[in-house]
Every structure is written in structure tokens, then in C-alpha cells.
């Protein structure tokens, strides 16, 4: 029982951590009004970048940094198309997903199926790591999880809701014309936060291949990018809710793994379906009970709509 709890919790933190990073990145993009459906592709690109970096002798931290930079670079192409040229966000997002997944698999062929050369190692925190369950599941993990689960969400919450800059960037997502009139640089903020969000999505991919799995194979992202996009809606576009949701999905994923490892009398295929079906359930069930209320109102009003100054 203790082992089961420890296993579920530690897997949930890693699997959910990947989703949390992606969801936080998507929160940033959507808060400035850009719907980035390219997360799945960015996950793949970040994942393969990190694998290649460590295969060439880089440390895992440098590998993760490379994943962030590649994610941001592709995010800049996406942002150039949807913010600069105001192209259709749905189309460009799908294009990024398809091109990113294809490119990652093409570049990653020589690395397919091999374990990562270097991975994030766990660090036992003196004292705390001796606690039952939590000691091994939380306080002996790699230090990245504290950044993902505590530092980053708190920082983003502070940025979005406690600073002037955060108010401006939310205004850009709610009413870009008003923000523009108030002197906020709409295009610049949109571009910047889409790129920053894409960087976080790249980091999610790097975390997937250097801490969670840790190896590269085709289709390793397995829809996690899409689940992260769905999580943002589920979380009402708020960073703290997004990480809570990510933890829930981490638990669902972990449950599937544990079930397979312990030979539960359910075919593994059905256990693997849990995260996808769970995501759909989490989109539908709240809406069933709260029709046309709070949750829908929380979506940034200008989400998905390109801003033309001459249409004000």
C-alpha cells in the first residue's frame, strides 16, 4: 500500500509536471488572446532537442535550456504568422503541430528507442527525504519538480494578477483595442508572451524526455500537448488552477501505469485511454453543472481573434 502510494505520487508529479509546463505556457499565450494549438508539435521539438543536446555531451540542464530555446524559436515563427501577419490561429496551430511532430521524428530517427544519455537525477533533501511516502515520492525527486509545481505557478500568478504589467497583458487578451488606446503595445505583448509560452512548451518536451520517460521514440508526446491545451480551458485560464489540473491528470496517468504494472484485470489499452477520456470528461462534466456561468466567462474575450487597429 505504501509502495503503491509512493509510486502513484512520484509518477503523477513527473507525468503531471510535463502537462503543467505546457499548460502554463498555454495560459500565457491565451491570456494575451492567442490560441496556440501547436503545443503537441512544440512538445515533440523540445523533447528531441533535449535528447540530442545530452547525446552530444551537454548536461541535462543545458539540454533543457536548448529545448526552451528551440520551442521559443518555433513559437516565434508561429507568433510571426498569427500576430505579425494575423493569419488564422487554428490553422497555424495545426500546422505547427504537424510540422513540429514530423520534423522531430525525422531528426530523431538515429536516437529512436535509445535511453537518454544523461537524465535529471533525484536529490534527496536531508531530513525531509526520510518522511514516509512523501520522502521518496516528493523530496527525493529531481529539483526540477519544485520549479514546475511551486516556483513557476506562483511567479506567473503574481505576474498576472499582482503587477501592472500583468494587468496590461490580460487587457490585451480581453480588449486589445482598449489596451491599444491606453498605450499598451498589443502586438509586442502578444508576440512576446506567445514566444514565452512556446518556450515553456519546449521545456515540457525536454522534461518528458530527460526526466519522465526518459528516452526518445516516435509519437512519444502521445497527445500530451492536446491534453495541456484542454487543461487550460478546464482551469479557467488561471496558472494555479492549471497546475492543480495537471496534478489531477498526472494522477490519472499514474493510475494507468500502476494498473499495468500490477496486472489489474483490465486490458492495458483501456488503461492507456484513461487520460484522453478523462480529459473529455473534465471538459464536459463541469459544463453540465455550470451551464453558461462563471467558467465560460473566464475565457479572455479576444481569444483567437486577430487584432486589426483599423477595425477598432
Amino acid at each position, binding site marked *: 500500500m505504501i509502495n503503491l502510494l509512493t509510486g502513484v505520487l512520484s509518477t503523477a508529479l513527473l507525468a503531471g509536471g510535463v502537462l503543467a509546463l505546457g499548460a502554463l505556457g498555454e495560459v500565457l499565450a491565451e491570456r494575451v488572446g492567442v490560441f496556440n494549438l501547436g503545443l503537441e508539435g512544440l512538445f515533440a521539438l523540445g523533447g528531441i532537442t533535449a535528447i540530442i543536446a545530452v547525446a552530444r555531451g551537454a548536461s541535462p540542464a543545458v539540454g533543457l535550456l536548448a529545448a526552451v530555446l528551440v520551442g521559443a524559436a518555433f513559437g516565434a515563427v508561429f507568433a510571426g504568422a498569427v500576430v505579425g501577419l494575423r*493569419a488564422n490561429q*487554428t490553422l497555424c496551430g495545426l500546422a505547427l503541430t*504537424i510540422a513540429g*511532430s514530423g520534423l522531430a521524428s525525422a531528426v530523431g530517427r538515429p536516437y529512436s528507442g535509445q535511453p537518454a544519455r544523461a537524465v535529471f537525477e533525484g536529490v534527496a533533501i536531508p531530513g525531509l527525504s526520510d518522511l514516509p511516502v512523501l520522502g521518496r515520492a516528493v523530496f527525493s525527486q529531481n529539483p526540477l519538480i519544485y520549479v514546475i509545481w511551486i516556483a513557476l505557478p506562483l511567479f506567473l500568478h503574481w505576474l498576472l494578477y499582482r503587477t501592472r504589467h500583468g494587468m496590461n497583458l490580460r487587457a490585451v487578451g480581453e480588449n486589445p483595442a482598449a489596451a491599444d488606446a491606453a498605450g499598451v503595445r498589443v502586438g509586442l505583448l502578444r508576440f512576446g508572451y506567445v514566444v514565452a509560452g512556446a518556450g515553456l512548451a519546449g521545456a515540457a518536451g525536454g522534461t518528458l524526455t530527460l526526466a519522465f520517460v526518459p528516452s526518445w521514440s516516435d509519437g512519444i508526446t502521445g497527445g500530451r500537448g492536446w491534453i495541456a491545451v*484542454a487543461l487550460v*480551458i478546464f482551469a479557467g485560464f488561471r496558472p494555479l488552477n492549471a497546475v492543480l489540473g495537471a496534478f489531477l491528470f498526472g494522477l490519472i496517468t499514474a493510475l494507468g501505469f500502476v494498473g499495468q504494472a500490477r496486472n489489474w484485470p483490465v*486490458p492495458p489499452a483501456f488503461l492507456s485511454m484513461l487520460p484522453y477520456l478523462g480529459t473529455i470528461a473534465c471538459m464536459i462534466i463541469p459544463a453540465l453543472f455550470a451551464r453558461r456561468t462563471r467558467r465560460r466567462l473566464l475565457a479572455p474575450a479576444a481569444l483567437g481573434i486577430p487584432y*486589426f487597429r483599423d477595425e477598432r
Partner: protein
Amino acid sequence: MRLQRVAAIGPWTVVATRVLSVAAALLVGGSVFAFAGYDVPTLAASVVQSSLGSLFGLEDLGLLFSPLILTGLAAAVALRIGLWNIGGEGQFYAGAIAATLAGLNMHGPASLMLPLLALAGFAGGAAWVLVPALARAFLLIDEIITTLLLNFVAVLLVNYLCTGPLRDPAQAVTSASARIPYEISPLLDDLHWGLGVSVALVAIMAGLSAFTRWGFETRLAGANRHAAHYAGIPVRRRLMQVLLLSGGLAGVAGMLEVVGTVHRLQGGISNNYGYLGVMVAVLAGGVPWAVLPAALLMAVILNAGTVLQAYGVSNYEVLALTGLVLLFTAVGERLAYYRPARRPVRAA
């Protein structure tokens, strides 16, 4: 030079933009290939030669063309009412599963069974999109994510069926179902009448869309949902009908593939047709008849992936190239609305 944005563009501008966008994407993609050390002119020549230069190649192309027409039509139908059905892949598999189950368990003359299997495929595809459709129509839940996530579920389900309950014990190595005892009569050697069915369905959908009240109502609901509602059109019912029809068409594609081409249910038969169908629909701008040229283009690109394997190019490079085509199409769609300003615009 100053640019000005115009409110509307003509149909030929749209066509010209599409062609230019695709050409630009292929040019950029080709440059990347050249940069990576491939001999691009040779590759291009071999693609054209092997897909268009022989009857055998044309037949291969036709086998890719037919499912792309239907998955493209499926996505295009949804696009007309402003919905994104990204779940063509899952609906394709659901249709294939339903047709396989019916084909393996029901017996009768082929003339009766084939329409029945097509119906089963349609029902399977429609059933697969039922929950996203209900969620979209009644709870306003974004259909992009729900339809897409079900693709992963469908892939897992097919793999489970082919390695478990439906596995053919006679086949030792591959995991696939038993052979379905019905065949679609051939057009050429391997190319079957599924292509004819696909083209006929395009014609039917084009007719429905252009000449019927139903088609008008769906187009109006796609253009402006509130205006349509105000005009007394049952928007919610149209949304449901369109999504179920869309899923059903993708399901028929799955049925034709499994009954006509592969003859067994097995993993990977969808060959990304569902995702590529979305691209076909986008290239076609949601217009049913335009699905035909768009699907042909995608078939050539997909076929290139097979041809180029001899040169060390994998399907993934081709997939990345299709992503590039989509990106350029999206950008071109917007740029088409800009013209050089006729009169000098006074600086503010």
C-alpha cells in the same frame, strides 16, 4: 509602397493564392531538403515519374486519393458550418471497426452486404463523433480538442481488437483481424470502385450544399450563427447533423479502406488520412467540389513519401512538409486581402 486591406476578394484570387501558397511552401521545403544535402531536382523528377508516369504509379496514387477525398470531404462539410472536426482519424478507425465487425459476423450476397458494410462504416464514424457533437451543440464545448483526443482512443481500441478479440490466429506474426470475405470490384488491378464512391459522394455533397435549403441553412449558420438563429434556422440541430454527417463520411473512408484495400482490420491503416483530410479541407476552403483537386495534391505529396524512401527520406519529412503547406496556406489566406494602396494614404 503602402498596402491597404480590402473587405472581400474574388474566387479566382482565392484559387491563385492557394496555388502560390502551396508553391511557396514546396519551394521553402525543397530548399531545406537541398540544404540537408539531398539532390532536390532528382527527387522531384522521381516523384513525378513514379506517381504520374506509369499506370502502376497512377493506381497507387488512386489508392491514396480515394480515402483523402472522403476524409477531406468530412472535414470540409464541418468547416462549412464553422466547425473543426479534427477527429477524422478516429472516425476513420471507428468506421473500419464497424465494417469489420459487420463483415466478419454477417453473411449474405455481396450486392447486399457491401452497401450494408458502408452503412456500418457510416454509423461507426458518426457514433465516434456523437459525444463531441452533443457537447458542442448543447454545452458550447470546443470541438477541436474533443474530436482530436478521441483519435488516440480509437488507435488504442484498434490495437486492442487486433491483438485481442479479433486477432486472426492463422496469422502468426502480424496482429490483424481475419480476412473480410467481401470485396469491392476493381476499377484497375488494385484500384477499386471505392474511388468512384468517393467522387460520387463529393458530387452529392456539392449538390446538397449548393442547391438545397439544408445546404443554404448550414452555410448561413457557418457564416453567422447569430443571424442564422435570428432567421429561424435551427442552428443546434444543423450543428449536430453536420458533425454526424462529417463523422459518417470519415467512417465510410475507413470502411472502403478496410474492405476494399487492406481486407483486414489492423493498426496503422489510417495512414494519417484523418489529419491530412483536415488539410485537404483547408486547401479546398470548405468547398465540396474543391476537395477533389486538394485531395489529389495531398495524394501526390503522400505518395512522394513512399517513393522517396528509396532515397532515405522518411514519411516524417513529408509530414513536416505538409505542415509547411498548411502554414503557408494560412498566411496566404490573410495576405490575399492586401493590395497596393490606390491613392496615397495620408500619414496620420
